[in-house]
């Protein structure tokens, strides 16, 4: 360590250190990205299986995924969109492409995602008679700090929850971050997401759900200390079950009585 170093040397050292460090960071990020991408995909599939209640430990995930029928849905009409390899469709890439997505009006965009892709994947299972008995759909939107990405699994009646999970978010650990916690997620099973007019209806309530209350089927205990994360989850469900989300598709499922 020298006390009096000429300014030029100080600048040069700073420059060299910054360049070397940024090179190291860039190279490692780029080299590791493909592996991380595979992990992310794998983790998403794991979440689809878990949310549908189909996950078995010790069996390869890609194999288990074959129990589910992957389809693409045109969100506006709610009809299936036939595609060669629906599992290769990337909803989030499509959202950024103006040709494959629509801009949302400010008052429609309650989840603050700005654009919505025209097509979205759905994952289905059918009973022996060929009727849809499980529907898993991707959901996402803003929480407090971050975008929450998740899946919700519904029964064939399109309104009863099998499960909900968020696989990616950056909410405050211990507060909003508890949307990962098994204990909180467990209470969603059996909740009903629509009212009698088929409008989305689900509320996150503070202080616990009173099960004697007739409306408690539409209520879930909110996370404590996470007002904005709770509001995010509420809006995400409202949006993705509504007319700009999977509303039309769920209509089609109901009107065809699951035979689609």
């Amino acid at each position: 360590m020298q006390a009096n170093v000429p300014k030029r040397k100080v600048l040069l050292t700073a420059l060299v250190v910054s360049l070397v460090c940024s090179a190291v960071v860039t190279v490692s990020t780029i080299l590791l990205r493909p592996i991380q991408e595979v992990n992310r995909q794998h983790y998403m599939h794991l979440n689809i299986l878990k949310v549908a209640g189909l996950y078995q430990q010790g069996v390869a995930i890609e194999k288990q995924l074959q129990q589910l029928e992957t389809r693409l849905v045109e969100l506006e009409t709610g009809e299936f969109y036939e595609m060669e390899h629906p599992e290769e469709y990337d909803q989030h890439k499509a959202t950024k492409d103006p040709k494959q997505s629509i801009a949302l009006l400010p008052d429609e965009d309650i989840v603050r995602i700005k654009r919505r892709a025209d097509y979205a994947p759905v994952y289905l299972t059918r009973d022996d008679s060929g009727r849809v008995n499980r529907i898993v759909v991707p959901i996402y939107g803003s929480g407090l700090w971050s975008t929450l990405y998740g899946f919700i699994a519904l029964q064939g009646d399109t309104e009863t929850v099998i499960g909900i999970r968020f696989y990616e978010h950056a909410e405050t650990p211990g507060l909003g971050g508890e949307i990962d916690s098994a204990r909180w997620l467990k209470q969603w099973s059996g909740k009903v997401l629509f009212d009698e007019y088929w409008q989305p209806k689900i509320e996150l309530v503070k202080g616990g759900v009173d099960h004697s209350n007739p409306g408690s089927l539409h209520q879930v205990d909110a996370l404590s200390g996470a007002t904005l994360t709770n509001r995010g989850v509420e809006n995400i469900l409202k949006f993705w079950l509504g007319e700009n989300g999977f509303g039309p598709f769920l209509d089609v499922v109901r009107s065809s009585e699951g035979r689609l």
Partner: protein
Amino acid sequence: MSSLSTTSTDKCKIALINPLFDSNPITVQILGICSVLAVTTSLKSTLIMCAAVIAVLTLTNTTVSIIRHHIPASIRIIVQMTIIASLVIVVDQFIKAYAFEMSKPLSVFVGLIVTNCIIMGRAEAFAMHNPPGLSFLDGLGHGIGYSMVLIIVATVRELLGTGRLLGYTLMPSVFEGGWYYPNSMMVLAPSAFFIIGLLIWALRSWKSHQVEKDQ
């Protein structure tokens, strides 16, 4: 500390062994305890965190030591920070690639290694004045010293808080039909303070010279 008569192997030993008990960064220097509170709820995430800290600490110490004669005194802190921050990003990328599942519960805490005082403390206090080999050992020693405390805290917290360890049920909890009633305080941050406090007490009873004199 380092008289002229000490041989270099002695120096190496001191650099490596001293931080385990005599100058443990957590129990003696009380540094870097933020991450102890945050990640020690489960042993598995703690182990990943320890590996990350050891990697960052040894690499930072070695790198800083190698270029120590070229770092101008006026910008030495910022140079150290740049090196630390870059290494933390690299380690975080590795965790996301090879321990993806664990990167979820660790979330922001790997990134926060940047602000862990132990790392910059060792770079500034040791690596700036010592050769690379010795600095490497110093980093390793402090990393292991840090990890020992974290592993003890995490073992106590996970076992008493959930009845499990590394995912294996050792004491079946009443929620799973067993007999153990989990102490939920153990999963909250304050319990880490209590356990560290008890550890410091135990260590100072054993090595009584660590007790500060009355002022």
